[in-house]
């Protein structure tokens, strides 16, 4: 079983991100359970989304306390709060870079990728709308859990009704995130 924890603020698309991850795992024949937890019922408040993935249907309904993978959508959440709490010893964290925010170093075998999701999104579309998709591309490259192909299909499935342009922009963001991590590894 693998467990993913996403840290974001309500309204930043963490649920969509979790559902895209879940769908991509589903395409591989796995059984994901993706779900949100809201700290407070308002926009901008810190919230989590989780994905738990297994070869057989997931039965455990609690939140994720010992994630294998962390996605930090909004690095401002790392000020004054330890997003690494419970983080698996050989886990992988992907943090959306944010100017002026220092990203704490993880411990031991834990790996950290600081990905300029907002910057890449701005390069593609002129504003920060695709940051989460960049992080998904980075997730695929950093963890090796999903292929770009799986995520492309998930993106198409999710955004198809919004038109080909939206699909293609997201696929480009995905690829850029993937490449960023691949290049930083070398």
């Amino acid at each position, binding site marked *: 079983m693998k467990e993913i924890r996403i840290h974001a603020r309500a309204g930043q698309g963490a649920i969509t991100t979790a559902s895209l991850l879940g*769908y991509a795992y589903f395409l591989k024949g796995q*059984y994901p*359970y993706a*779900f949100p937890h809201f700290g407070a019922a308002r926009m901008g408040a810190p919230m989590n989304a989780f994905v738990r993935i297994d070869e057989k*249907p*997931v039965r455990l*309904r609690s939140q994720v306390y010992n994630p294998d993978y962390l996605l930090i959508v909004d690095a401002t959440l790392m000020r004054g709060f330890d997003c690494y709490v419970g983080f698996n010893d050989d886990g992988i964290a992907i943090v959306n870079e944010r100017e002026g925010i220092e990203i704490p170093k993880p411990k031991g075998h834990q790996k950290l990728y600081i990905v300029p999701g907002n910057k890449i999104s701005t390069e593609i579309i002129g504003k920060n709308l695709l940051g989460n998709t960049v992080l998904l591309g980075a997730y695929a490259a950093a963890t090796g859990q999903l292929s770009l192909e799986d995520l492309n299909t998930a993106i198409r499935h999710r955004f198809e009704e919004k038109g080909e342009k939206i699909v293609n922009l997201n696929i480009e963001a995905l690829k850029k995130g993937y490449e960023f991590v691949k290049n930083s590894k070398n």
Partner: protein
Amino acid sequence: MKQFIEGSHAVAEIIKRCKPGVVSAYPITPQTHIVEDLAQMVASKELNAQCVNVESEHSAASVVLGAEAAGVRSYTATSSQGLLLMAEVIFNIAGMRLPLVLTCANRAISAPINIWNDQQDVMAVRDSGWIQLFAETNQDVVDLHLQAYKIAEDPRMMVPVMVNMDGFILTHGMEVVDMPSQEEVDKFLPPYQTDYKLDVDNPKTMGYLADPDYYLEIRYILEKTLREALGVVPEVAEQFKKAFKRETFGLIEGYKLEGAEKVFVAMGSVCGSIRDVVDELRVKGEKVGLLKVICYRPFPKDAIALALSSVREVAVVDKSISLGAYGPLYTDLTSALSSSGCKIPKVSGFILGLGGRDITKKSIVDVYDRLGGKQVDCEFMGLKQELLKDCK
């Protein structure tokens, strides 16, 4: 077809396939996505139904009461305060013998206001005469809604059915669900036809005055029907199994009960987490199992007493409380056992997860660790003592 789908969306999809003629609901967290989806389906003509906008849950329930009284298959969904506002109408729907199906996205009750999951809301209308089913997974959610209409509209029944799904955990949880096709649903659930309806050519009165000469018998008949539902619910489950080639359990489901000395009893999504804990304890050699109650009203007392007849100790996990007394499931279970004539195991009652307090594997193990010790009847688990220091 297998889909990766959010629980609320899965409800809307299966309700669409059940083809209700009238849908009326008032949005409330965490039920909102269900009625948003259904309203969208009506707007895009995917679902040929009247979607009636209302200003409150009391009106939503009244609209579907009226539609059912006119002989039309209908649907509504609500949660928490919404169900409480419906309460008056909920009792009327059962008393008038209208086969409505309602989804309750289980959520805590105010005050203090809390949008998160527990099962307190449904307990407020526990005694209303509805059949009440509890889903563990989103597959259950889909399968139970289909069975709900079949049970409700059975000419022997004509009582409403409420399908309970844990708020957020299931309503907002996305998982893999095998969604039946329209053809399969049509075959299992034919259009609703009844002579019991308001019809100007054949006038009838519903919900009339019953004076002391009649009321007692009318209540007796409703109670008798609910007891007969203990036969109809498993019968429909059998039909469902044959039609969809998928396991479904009717009244209760035992998990690793064979040779079990200590058994958890619970309802809803927490049963999944308990299964994981049971497996882990079994590996350690503990003789432990789970009894899941699917049909809470009518309460399957004989089936439960039989399932627990050779068990030494029982831990009832309640996600609600009858304040000043016990957890509702605990009360029902102890009553069922004491009247069964079987040997009565030691039964302890635990209150967990109120207002969305996360039920972790550790919380369940903590319950298990309390067994063998002093018997407790209403023990709150996981209390933060630092928040209680001024509470003498």
